[in-house]
């Protein structure tokens, strides 16, 4: 990919935009289509696109594999932790009304935000680590043979 100047410039512009869009989808998911699953995938796509056009090493300097592998578990723990927090506050598991005793509606919104955040982190990390796993192998088909 060393010679594709246009591709490289466009990717540099697009990668940031895609990440911004991913965060919009994540945090505006309560009001418009979107949510943790979509945002996670889109955020992963930004990194994957950058890795495809430049190199995986460049991406791994920003998102090292150990961080990605820990983030996979972190997202799920955030999700389950929200449920356990509700449990400790004397409500049912995953009953977000517990998070704000005065106004259950706000508690629900906070809970949904946390849970969607957990989903987003897990999905991003899983997609990225799958990508890392696949590009970590030596291909049997060279670049010229496509």
């Amino acid at each position, binding site marked *: 990919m060393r010679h594709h100047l246009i591709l490289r410039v466009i990717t540099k512009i697009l990668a940031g935009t895609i990440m911004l869009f991913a965060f919009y989808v994540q945090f505006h998911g309560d009001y418009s289509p979107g949510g943790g*699953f979509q945002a996670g995938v889109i955020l992963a796509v930004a990194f994957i696109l950058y890795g495809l056009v430049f190199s995986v090493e460049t991406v791994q300097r920003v998102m090292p594999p150990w961080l990605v592998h820990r983030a996979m578990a972190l997202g799920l723990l955030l999700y389950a932790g929200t449920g356990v927090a509700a449990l400790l506050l004397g409500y049912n598991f995953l009953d977000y009304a517990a998070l704000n005793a005065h106004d259950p509606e706000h508690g629900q919104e906070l809970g949904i935000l946390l849970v969607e955040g957990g989903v987003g982190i897990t999905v991003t990390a899983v997609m990225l680590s*799958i990508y890392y796993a*696949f590009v970590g192998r030596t291909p049997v088909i060279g670049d010229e043979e496509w």
Partner: protein
Amino acid sequence: MQQGVSWEYLVGHANYWLFVLLMMTGLYIVVARGNFVKKVIGLNMFQSAVIMLYISMGKVAGGTAPIFPIHGEIDPATVYTNPLPHVLMLTAIVVGIATTSLALALIVRIREEYGTIEEQGIWEAEQEIAARERRQYGEVFGEGSQ
């Protein structure tokens, strides 16, 4: 089926039949083709057909996307499409890509062990290994070597 076959009946059920056709195309690829990558793509088609079936079951004639207006009153006259299938299928798609990538990872490992991703080729390789072992252990145990 009491009302006989009317035009409305045909139009109202054509969507199910189309999805059955798509599903069976996927099933045919899984059963008839020996290449593992192709089998995975067939499974994906099967999955898409199931997802489309569910989504089309949730559609209400004249309905709109299930998002309430952000500010202002909710008009009770507005018809919303059933959001429940959307929730289920949304997660199914993301789980689907995760399991698909697991299948693809298995295919990569199979290719590294056997040197082929065809059902037939793996069968041949297995026969070869079995024949070699029979020769080897037949000598050791002194059983009739054929």
